[in-house]
């Protein structure tokens, strides 16, 4: 079955400020949607709303024609999420953190060494996460995308703190995902870096 995410008439306010109103779009397999806009325009909030972490004022979000509020578990089985915050425990190593997520998200942990090798993190896999640099922490975040293999990626500034080499690795990973019929919604300040995007949503 072809995967599809449908956003209909999404509206959200933060206090008196309307972040977005009656926003509608549809993503199907192989689509890369970019969300751009200045700081404070609501990119993160829109992503969180799509993920189901924030309740919109109005609007409906459906995964494969089923509202995500009706069948949350199926939706969550198909999401990979990257936000500004890394979502790793500082006192635990990359391995410990990813092993925890493997059980939570029900993905295989067998290829962890290959994944960390690809992200140039093999030497740091047993070091407490808090001792890694900002770039290394961001690379570790990307490991969950490769391991989890979920259909829908919701990514908030995934390339922040990444050096040029790591950004190329990320684009490789993203291209593989899109070619393999994955879906991606990505918030970014640099839409020009993603030439293969299907469409761009600009928030003001």
């Amino acid at each position: 079955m072809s995967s599809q995410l449908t956003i209909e008439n999404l509206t959200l306010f933060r206090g008196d400020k309307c972040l977005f109103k009656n926003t509608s779009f549809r993503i199907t397999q192989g689509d890369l949607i970019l969300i751009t806009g200045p700081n404070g325009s609501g990119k993160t909030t829109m992503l969180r709303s799509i993920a189901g972490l924030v309740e919109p004022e109005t609007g409906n979000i459906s995964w494969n024609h089923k509202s995500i509020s009706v069948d949350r578990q199926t939706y969550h089985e198909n999401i990979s999420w990257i936000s500004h915050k890394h979502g790793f425990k500082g006192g635990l190593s990359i391995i410990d953190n990813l092993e925890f997520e493997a059980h939570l998200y029900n993905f295989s942990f067998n290829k962890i060494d290959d994944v960390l090798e690809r992200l140039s993190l093999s030497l740091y896999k047993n070091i407490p996460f808090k001792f890694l640099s900002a770039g290394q922490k961001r690379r570790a975040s990307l490991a969950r995308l490769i391991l989890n293999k979920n259909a829908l990626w919701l990514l908030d500034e995934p390339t922040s703190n990444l050096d040029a080499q790591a950004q190329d690795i990320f684009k490789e990973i993203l291209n593989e995902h899109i070619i393999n019929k994955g879906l991606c919604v990505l918030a970014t300040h640099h839409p020009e870096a993603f030439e293969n995007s299907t469409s761009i949503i600009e928030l003001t």
Partner: protein
Amino acid sequence: MPKKLSLIAGFMAMFRRDLLQSIKSPSQLLNPLIFFIMITATFPFAVNAEKAQLVQIGPGIIWIMAILSYLLTLHHLYLDDAEDGCLDYIMLSPQPLPLLVLAKICAHWISSGLPLIIISPIIGIIYQMQVDTILVMIGTLFFGTFALSLVGSIGASLTISINNSNILVSLLVLPIMMPVLIFGARTIELYQSGATTMPGLYFLGAYCMFALSFSPFASAAALRIGTD
């Protein structure tokens, strides 16, 4: 073929992670325990009480200090995960959120309640308690501290989006903890005066089970609202 989602694996992963995290952050583990020991151990010196007075006031003091020590730990229950972004991943997991909340509560009890229970016999000796009274005290603390973790989870989840919420968590949770305090302390006192302890222990057990039946769901709902 995708693996079938294992609820037990999810529960154990969450439980293990939280326990590991608390072991690797010893200050979070030790500060409430040291607070409990310092106050309960030095109280008899401050009041210069006779042996009979210590026996009388001991249960109340131990129970009050157990609750106050617990209140120190509650606001960390979800706040740390919210601050480092882990809470988003927990909430986006296909595992039922109440199950993961219950795992966090169990880990919280192991790291916060169990040390109090283990150290309580020594404190009991300071308050001139007999061995059998100490056993009753351990029984009340066993049920009572687990009930405190369950009830405290609701307060912690309700205040997740509020800065500096530790006072607010305490204000929210303290009134609900009053029955646990009253029955916990009173059960020990009644035993010391020769009465039966079973009604008190039954109440604490029932309170625990009642809290277990709704706290994970209430906490999960509060977390969803709080992260909105």
